[in-house]
C-alpha cells in the first residue's frame, strides 16, 4: 500500500481509506507479504460488476425507447390537479 501512496501522490492514510472502501465492496483483496500489505483486484467480482452494469444499461436503453413513445403520444404537460 505504501507503493500505491507513492504512485498516486497520496498520503498513506488516504490510500488506506480508498482501499478500505474497495475492500468492503469486495472489489479488491488484501494479502500480507512480510511487513507489506499487497492489494490486488478481485477479477471475478469486477467481471461480475461489469455484467450487472451491462444489464442495467440494456434496461435503460429499453426505458429510453418507452419514454420516447410516451412523450410522443402525450406531449403536452398535464395540468396539476389542486
Amino acid at each position: 500500500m505504501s507503493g500505491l501512496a507513492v504512485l498516486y501522490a497520496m498520503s498513506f492514510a488516504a490510500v488506506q481509506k480508498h482501499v478500505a472502501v474497495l475492500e468492503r465492496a469486495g472489489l479488491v483483496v488484501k494479502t500480507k507479504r512480510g511487513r507489506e500489505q499487497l492489494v490486488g483486484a478481485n477479477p471475478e467480482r469486477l467481471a461480475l460488476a461489469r455484467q450487472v452494469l451491462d444489464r442495467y444499461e440494456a434496461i435503460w436503453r429499453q426505458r429510453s425507447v418507452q419514454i420516447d413513445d410516451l412523450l410522443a403520444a402525450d406531449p403536452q404537460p398535464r395540468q396539476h390537479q389542486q
Partner: protein
Amino acid sequence: MTFISSVKDPEALSLIIVNEFDADVERVWQIWEDPRQLERWWGPPSWPATFTEFDFTVGGLAHYYMTGPEGEKAGGWWKFALIEGPTTLEIEDGFADEDGHPVDELGVTGMRMTLEDIGGRTRMTITSRFESAEQLQKMVEMGMEEGMKEAASQIDAILAE
C-alpha cells in the same frame, strides 16, 4: 435515438446513463412524478409495472410490482430521498417480496436523476450506485433464473406450435 451515452465504472459500482428527449424539462419531470405515466415506461414491455402506493414527498415511499408474461410478479419499493422539482430526484430503489415487504439481502440501489434544459429539449442523466459486489452477485443469480425461465417458456411456445 435518444439514448446518448453510458459510463460504466465497475470499480465504483456505478453507472451513468444520459438520455435526451424532445420535450421540455417540466414535461419530462412528469414522467417521474405521475405514477400512471411511470407505469408506461418503468417496466420492460413484457413486464409492465403497476404502482400501488406513491407518496411523492421527501422520505415518502412508493411500492410497485411488475407482472411477467406468465402472470408472475416481481416487487420493488422506492424511497424518495430528495425531490427538487423539476430538475433533481434521488431515489433508493430496492426489491420487495410478493407482499411488498422489502427484501434486504438484495440491497438498495441509489439513483440520482437530473434534468437539464438544452434549448427546449431535455437531457436526463441517471446515476445508479450499487452497494456491494455481493449485491451484484445476487442480482445476477436472480437475473439468470429469470432468463432461464423466459427461455424455458419460449421453448414451450415453440414446442406447442
